[in-house]
């Protein structure tokens, strides 16, 4: 194959373009989109980790990758047994279940 351009320069130019775009990104806007897409809270801990230029639906687009830091915790007792987090009291759910069953049986 005949080389007609310097690949190093192309590669550097591409990287420069990505770097410039990185700086132009509204990171808070991205955070809101990702929070909506994934149905979770991301907070401030979000960083650009990489990016690329690609073709999507017949147009040139930029893909940016982000890294998000999460802090999650679980509870367990002295025996090491996992304690599920508090949510709806079980008896409330059970009451609904009994009521529903009762209606169905009498229907």
């Amino acid at each position, binding site marked *: 194959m005949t080389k007609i351009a310097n690949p190093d320069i192309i590669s550097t130019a591409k990287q420069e373009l990505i770097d410039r775009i990185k700086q132009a990104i509204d990171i808070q806007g991205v955070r809101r989109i990702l929070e909506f897409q994934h149905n979770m809270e991301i907070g401030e801990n979000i960083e650009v980790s990489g990016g690329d230029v690609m073709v999507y639906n017949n147009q040139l687009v930029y893909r940016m990758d982000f890294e998000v830091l999460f802090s999650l915790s679980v509870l367990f007792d002295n025996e090491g047994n996992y304690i599920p987090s508090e949510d709806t009291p079980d008896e409330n759910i059970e009451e609904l279940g009994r009521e529903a069953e009762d209606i169905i049986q009498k*229907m």
Partner: protein
Amino acid sequence: MAHTIGIVNLKGGVGKTTTAVNLAAYLSDAGNRTLLIDCDPQGSATAMIGVPKRKPAWSLFDALDGRIRLKDAVAPAWTPMLDAIPVRPDFNRTEFEDAPEFFQKHILSDGLNEIKDGYDYIVLDTPPSVGYISINALAASDSLLIPVQCEYLAYASLVRLLKYIRHMKGTAHPGMKLLGVLLTMHDGLQPISGKIIKNIREHLKDLVFDVIIPRSIDLCESSSYGIPVLFKSPDSPGAVSYKRLADEVIGRIATSRFYGI
């Protein structure tokens, strides 16, 4: 002759329209002549059934108030096996919604009797309210499919809905049957989801469909594209789950596995 499935829940946003549209798409995809009727004046199902974007020629309302025959409101939808009756938001006719319960509650079922022979399944998407149109939809349904989100408040409103259905069965529609309860928008990360599923299965047993619809971005996206998920991302978890639902529905109806009779 067609079996008419009413997709009902008085609670809003539980996945009625998503279920109606995707169930109808998969029933037709399995080779069944299927008719989807949008009984909700919000027109969400109409936006997803491929009836040309331009103003549909006729709306369900035109048939309900006797201007045309129901069969004349039928329009071709996505595939040759799928037809639809669209609805056009019509705010001049909101007085319809307030019509007394006893008033003409069989118009829809009378209309359907004329066209039932042409279909294997008719799917009704209904509004999240009690009114003239939803009463007509209940009266026209051979069986009811109830989507319920895997959440506490949704479970509580399922109990209210069952009471309402029992009331309707006692007064207006003695033949009413339940096809099943469908758990929707399941999110494995929420502990409450798992608890509700376990409890609902324990108490309502076989009434609950085996398949559980996961919370899936593909379902959300396909509605924003205005198409059933089958045509957008057929391999996504949401699509696969609605295909399984269609199989279960076909099986239950074929073997007359109904509840509340």
